[in-house]
């Protein structure tokens, strides 16, 4: 990645740093300030605050998918199902069996990672489209399990996942003597911290040997095998990481929304996640975040536009879901035609424009 002219490093440590120039630091500070100020600005706007929190929670799963598809080159259409694995696991562990919520979320992440590794076994033999089909099978098998395995929901068809309770008795449903974290405002902060931790972890993953091995598998898996990268093991590991992060995201969502139903984990969630990483730009962690933010913003924006225009165009206002689907497809097509490297590339070009002005390159 090109940096500004005149920037040179005298130590390896400096060379490895994530931020090299002052401009980069300034942008980081602005971003952090914006992320902290946003919930206060949206406090009276429940619609957008919920969209923002949803972006943060779902973003974790999208970052996981980016590790798998963007960096390791293995297409996965099972994100929706692994969100569900995390959600049902934590609902059972934390709500039904009364363990603390963080334990439930941790167990959910691990269970999702293990199941993800299992469904990643076909990757040892298949590539590309065929692997995508096996992940599609994983999606449907897991969804069928959610719908029909009565143990998961104790026969009721859905299961409650209690909101975390700070300070009160942990097993108590009513959270007497403590504060219940069930508002969108509180969950914005929880999700923000989790997303930042995940982002830093994944970003650092790709500065290690393991990360480079995954990239090598994407680019030339036969050559990677030849130079000593254990392709099979690392592919399973990539599946485990991606599905574990999806499980983490699903578990957070369960404790935020408090009711876990199978309807949330259908194939359209998987397609949405894949669309997000394509639009964001395959191959960069920032791209995952941009893609997730953009798609969730777009969905909410159309919903809002539909409501605003209902008084003038009555029929249009009620066709909002159709418009959302139309926009979903149109955006994917436009991005693939005009900027196949996604929003991350667009942002990079914007930064370069200002950095290199008045020169073109």
């Amino acid at each position, binding site marked *: 990645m090109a940096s500004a002219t005149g920037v040179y490093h005298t130590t390896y440590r400096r060379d490895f740093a994530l931020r090299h120039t002052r401009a980069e630091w300034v942008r980081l500070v602005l971003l952090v300030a914006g992320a902290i100020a946003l919930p206060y600005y949206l406090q*009276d*706007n*429940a*619609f*957008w605050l*919920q*969209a923002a929190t*949803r972006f943060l929670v779902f973003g974790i799963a999208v970052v996981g998918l980016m590790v798998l598809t963007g960096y390791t080159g293995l297409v996965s259409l099972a994100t929706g199902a692994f969100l569900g694995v995390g959600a049902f696991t934590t609902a059972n562990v934390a709500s039904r069996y009364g363990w603390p919520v963080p334990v439930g979320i941790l167990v959910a992440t691990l269970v999702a990672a293990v199941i993800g590794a299992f469904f990643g076994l076909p990757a040892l033999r298949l590539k590309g489209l065929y692997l995508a089909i096996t992940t599609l099978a994983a999606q449907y098998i897991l969804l069928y399990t959610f*719908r029909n395995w009565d143990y998961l929901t104790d026969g*009721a*068809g*859905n299961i*409650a996942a209690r909101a975390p309770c700070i300070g009160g008795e942990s097993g108590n449903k009513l959270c007497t003597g403590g504060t219940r974290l*069930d508002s*969108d405002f509180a969950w914005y902060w929880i999700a923000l911290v989790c997303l930042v931790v995940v982002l830093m972890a994944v970003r650092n993953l790709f500065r290690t040997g393991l990360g480079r091995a995954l990239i090598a598998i994407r680019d030339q898996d036969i050559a990677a095998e030849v130079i000593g990268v254990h392709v099979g093991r690392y592919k399973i590991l990539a599946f485990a990481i991606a599905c574990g992060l999806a499980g983490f995201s699903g578990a957070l969502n369960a404790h935020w*929304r*408090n*009711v876990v*139903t199978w*309807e*949330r984990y259908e194939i*359209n969630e998987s397609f949405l996640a894949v669309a997000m990483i394509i639009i964001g730009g395959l191959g960069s962690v920032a791209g995952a975040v941009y893609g997730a933010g953009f798609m969730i913003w777009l969905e*909410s*924006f159309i*919903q*809002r*536009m*539909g*409501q*605003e225009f*209902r*008084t003038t165009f009555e029929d249009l*206002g*009620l*066709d*909002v*879901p*159709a418009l959302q689907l139309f926009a979903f497809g149109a955006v994917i097509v436009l991005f693939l035609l005009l900027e196949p490297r996604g929003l991350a590339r667009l942002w990079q070009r914007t930064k370069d424009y200002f950095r290199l002005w008045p020169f073109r390159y």
Partner: protein
Amino acid sequence: MHRLARKLVLFMSLALLAVACGGGDDGGGEGAQQGESKDPIVVGAIFDLSGATSDVGTPYAQGIQDYVKFKNGKGGLDGHQIDLKFSDFAYKVPNAEQLYSQYVQEGAVAFMGWGTADTEALRTRVTSDEIPFMSASYAETLVNPEETPFNFFPGVSYSNQLRAVLKYIGDQEKGAQAKVAFFHHDSPFGTSPLEDGQKYIEENKLKIEMVAVKMPTGAQDFNPQLQNEGAGAKYVVIQNVPSPSAKLAQNVRASGSAATIVCMNWCGDEIFVKGAGDAAEGVIAVMPFAPPTAGAQGLEDLIAFTGGQANLEAKTLRYVQGWFTMATMAEGITKALAAADGGEITGVEVKAALETVKDFETGGVSKPITFSETNHAGLQSTPLYVVKGGKFEKLVDEIEI
């Protein structure tokens, strides 16, 4: 030219952005009439107009919206106009949650929900936000205020419907053994009444063998199920929405079976009759709300509003159902306003007022609707209708369970 075009596009997108993000309070819905001095009562609603259950969701939604227009035209609730804030959520749970949060923040004191997915997903939220939630889902789990204190529905619970059907079958068979194949939607909506139905058979020592048969979503025909689990059934009871139920009815007749088909409330309507064609003849339907052809006195307002009997019939039974569901909620709100005596009302007051609704008359469209502190299901008994010549005729006025 290139640069100018780019600047224009940037400006317009920023402008659109500002409009979208800025406009918070007056998003969507029926606005208050000019000159009204009393504050409008905000009611939130989500409809399924383009999702999995949109065939019944669309007329239901129209029923609710038209009732609001009708009531507002007559001066509203005790002088307050109803501000109905609604959107299509396409049976997607995240949309339902986002719209619910938005409308509650915009001041909704009551919420009109729809099906099992959104009702279950919002169940804990409505309890902690204290907003009464009236659903079109009649699951038994929503009846008990100890578990779901803010959920209501003006209908007969699925369990009670199945009990009524089993009682009717028991009476018809007069002690003879009969096999009943209970075909249901592959979801909690479908399996909801099964356990209670089995218990009813055992408690009343009915000579009925009830077999539960799953109707897979998206199946084109149900012959495999009819030949296996459903073989030899004298009665086929259907707990599903009209379109797959119509297919099942056609399969039953095509297989030469003379089994009596009984539709539960979400199956029996004009969409079913149209879809099943000749197979609909003789189908018995559980209908807590009377169809437009019933000639009930309570339908006069609807006929006047829609501009004639033919128009009302085109809107189907679900329109009537939506109209009277909204009317029930409006009754609760009116009572809350009366109790508050000019003061502000919140969801808590509306919920308490709904629990005092006793024998709310619908002019013969349904039995009088009653809620109480121990029961949030509005109706306890239902008539049975039968399809004759493509139209519904009343078969039994009331089944006592």
